[in-house]
């Protein structure tokens, strides 16, 4: 029941209003560089494949992964024959997923982050609980900075949950030694998609 007393103390103690600064000078519209994005994702420990068609995904996965028993693909076109019926449950049904292939709405060149929401992945825990994560993002959807991301692409909340994912999960808590694969996905693959003319 402290709400009123906290609010009263704040009102009494807060300094005078100062205007919010303008953020427009930080914008770099239409300058998102897929090559720069790729380089940052790689420095974060991810791997990037440039593809011209979704049909290229399957052979790349066969080449680069071993021991995949359960694969979830958000779109059938990513990987025909992937697991079905995976959406039903509280998320724990995904404990044994080896690889999830999901779409990303856009990427950010300055930090390698990809924006993913509940609308696409359907089950929130999927990109985290899967052992390995692959994200398909269109090369035309690479933005330059986080300011462009928030002001152009996620102006209004459009989903109950959204996340920027930049690289595989990692930790350096033991003597600052970088180890990939903390609690989330152990690896990240990005399929950077430019449709063939």
């Amino acid at each position: 029941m402290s709400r009123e007393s906290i609010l009263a103390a704040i009102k009494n103690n807060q300094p005078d209003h100062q205007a919010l600064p303008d953020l427009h000078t930080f914008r770099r519209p239409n300058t998102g560089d897929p090559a720069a994005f790729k380089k940052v994702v790689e420095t974060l420990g991810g791997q990037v494949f440039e593809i011209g068609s979704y049909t290229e995904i399957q052979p790349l996965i066969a080449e680069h992964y071993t021991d995949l028993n359960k694969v979830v693909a958000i779109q059938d076109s990513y990987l025909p024959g992937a697991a079905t019926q995976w959406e039903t449950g509280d998320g724990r049904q995904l404990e044994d997923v080896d690889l999830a292939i999901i779409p990303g709405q856009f990427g950010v060149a300055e930090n390698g982050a990809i924006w993913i929401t509940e609308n696409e992945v359907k089950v929130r825990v999927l990109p985290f609980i899967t052992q390995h994560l692959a994200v398909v993002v269109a090369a035309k959807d690479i933005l330059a900075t986080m300011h462009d991301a928030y002001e152009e692409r996620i102006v209004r909340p459009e989903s109950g949950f959204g996340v920027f994912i930049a690289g595989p999960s990692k930790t350096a808590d033991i003597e600052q030694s970088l180890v990939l694969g903390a609690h989330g996905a152990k690896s990240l693959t990005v399929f950077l998609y430019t449709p063939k003319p």
Partner: protein
Amino acid sequence: MEHQHKEHALLAEDFNANEPRVNWHDETLWWIRQKRDKIAWSIPEWEELRETASRIKHNVLGNLHDYLLEFERKAQENGAIVHWAANADEHNKIVLQLLQEQGVKRMVKSKSMLTEECHLNPYLAEHGIEVVDTDLGERIVQLAKEPPSHIVLPCIHKKKEEIGELFHEHLGTPAGNADPKFLTAAARQHLRKEFIQSRVAITGVNFAVAETGEMVVCTNEGNADMGAHLADVHIACMGIEKIIPQRKHLGVFLRLLARSATGQPITTYSSHFRSPKAGQQLHIVLVDNGRSRQLGREDFRNSLKCIRCGACMNTCPVYRRSGGHSYHNAIAGPIGAILAPNLDMKEYADLPFASTLCGSCSNVCPVKIDIHQQLYKWRQVITQEGHAKKTKAAGMHAMNIVLSKPGLYKTAGGVGRWVMRTFPAVVNNGMNPWFKQREMPAPPKQSFADWYKKNRPE
């Protein structure tokens, strides 16, 4: 003065007993500071970003009342349940009640310095509920029954061999294995079981957006997401100063946070929690615990701008060489030393003195808090309130007498130089705190005043 613990200088002395270890600690943190510099300097507009972040936070402080109401309204529209806690005790009671309603005896928590500040874990343990910390570093210090020594790098004071031993004892890993990759994999397996079993998850909050009622939580490990998305009940605990006005302001803060903290361009995960998933309860606990009082202290209110990146610790020559535990507070380092006296001025009277006032903390702070100036101001407040150490007060009093009388100053200097030359043991001994971990310099033959008289240009 009755303290429950030793003060900073004495705790730092314990830490300094092992010189190679202090050097290692010092170098590790300085390496992180260098990574921060490298990535910060790669962004031409870095200084403008810091200035902008500082001004956004200033706007927040001036409108906190209205922003909190806006955040509460939006969060409720999103389906969250909002609680208000005046202090640590009320926060802990709210969380306990939520856990008792669910009937859980064990649950997962991702890193939250607020719950450390409130001492939530021991409180819940007293009531028969076990908290499993899931950030790897926090889990390590939890197994070691220690508090975190750094807000971003909780076990930065631990060697991998010690961690190997802890894991051998608690997780059954082979004795003598101290390979970070192996130990991390063991922790992953152990904590996956906890995530799967846990019906309640507690997380901290990095930023809460008034405009949308959403909360952003940043981790590299993915532990906050593993916990929150699998749980039936998500409890998010946040200090009231975590509010930012609009979603677009996240662009500024997410650019600054990880770069300042560890020299990364962004954390692996920046999760935006707006509404609970279908069938889930989302509780948000807004905690004051002295923040509204700090807001009223004109000289110190800027400390509430802090985004908990830890850059001030990594750069601080005193933190690097004294270790986080010597600050005997949930938040160590320069920022901890200006936040703690607001919570209890007597208990933390020593902390603002644990600084050289070099100003490096203020120079790296991403929201431009005037940390070293606040440390200096706290010293004055603490001394005026009578909480300064008696020896320090007596020393300052003697200095005041000597420095304000030129004749006395001249005589005292001459006597001092003669004593140091003739009987060096008088100063080079353990009674002189300046002699600890140091060699005293050779005393000069003449005073500066004498030298100047001889050498000044005609």
